């Protein structure tokens, strides 16, 4: 509640043109937005799409009524922007597959190799899911939204969130068998 009050204060300031307040909001929600976009699209498009998300957010500052939590509001913008970017990618004739993107991303690594291999495997498994299932997995398992928050974000009943996650989870069990058996 305190964080949400603080958010509202920052939004008020950003609305009146305070760039520092807007910057603080970006800093606060950047990891969340990056994680959602990374999960939905893979690592290579995170930078540009995350920037789009915050620009859209800035342009819609006056439309935010404060009924939903800011994390839900921004999460919705992030999901919609990621889905639009995914559509555009499908229409591009020379679009890179998730596998290709991952190979390119490997050149830019600073973490331990084990960790990045695992991350690549998880990202590839996510990429094999349908958009509907991937969205729920990203929100529930990557970002840790609750069932009710995910339902509010996707504007679907809570039962739908649970059943989609259940089916997605069964698919993921298949794709990630080698990793799960190791553990």
């Amino acid at each position, binding site marked *: 509640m305190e964080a949400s009050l603080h958010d509202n204060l920052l939004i008020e300031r950003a609305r009146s043109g305070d760039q520092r307040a*807007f*910057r603080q909001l970006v800093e606060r929600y*950047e990891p969340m937005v990056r994680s959602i976009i990374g999960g939905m699209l893979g690592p290579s498009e995170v930078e540009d799409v995350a920037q789009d998300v915050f*620009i859209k957010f*800035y342009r819609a500052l006056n439309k935010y009524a404060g009924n939903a939590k800011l994390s839900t509001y921004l999460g919705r913008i992030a999901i919609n922007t990621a889905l639009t970017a995914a559509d555009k990618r499908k229409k591009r004739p020379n679009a890179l597959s998730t596998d290709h993107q991952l190979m390119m991303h490997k050149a830019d690594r600073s973490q331990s190799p084990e960790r990045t291999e695992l991350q690549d495997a998880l990202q590839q498994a996510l990429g094999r899911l349908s958009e509907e299932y991937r969205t729920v997995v990203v929100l529930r*398992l*990557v970002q840790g939204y609750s069932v009710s928050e995910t339902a509010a974000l996707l504007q679907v009943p809570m*039962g739908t969130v*649970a059943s989609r996650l259940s089916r997605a989870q069964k698919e993921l069990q298949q794709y990630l068998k080698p*990793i799960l058996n190791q553990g």
Partner: protein
Amino acid sequence: MMNRNKYSIEEARLLVHRSLDEVFDQQEQQALVVVLAQFPELEVERQQLEEMRQLFSQLQQPAKPGFAAQVASSVLSDHSWYRPLISSWSSVAAAACVVLALSLGFVYYNSGTLETEALLGLEDIQVDDVYAFE
């Protein structure tokens, strides 16, 4: 949902999934015990989801230094700083357009033209009227 002995699989699954994030009261806790006894496969699903969540949390991304400043500068460079102003003044601008259109309509209705003289209300003024002011 409370105080029952039987649940549909959908109800049961929703309760199990909610139990991953929410703190249940005593009634919900009892309901959870009942559904897990009724559908043992949901206990397996819950464990698998917990395991998956641990794995997938590794895809969480940290903030990148300088990103917020970059966003703020692109917001400024595309001059979108005035967009909030436009959106807050859009209703005032719309009302002003309506008033302007009505005024022009009124002038045209009365004088049959929208020439400068008609807009300034001078179309019927005579030379004698000018002398009358002296």
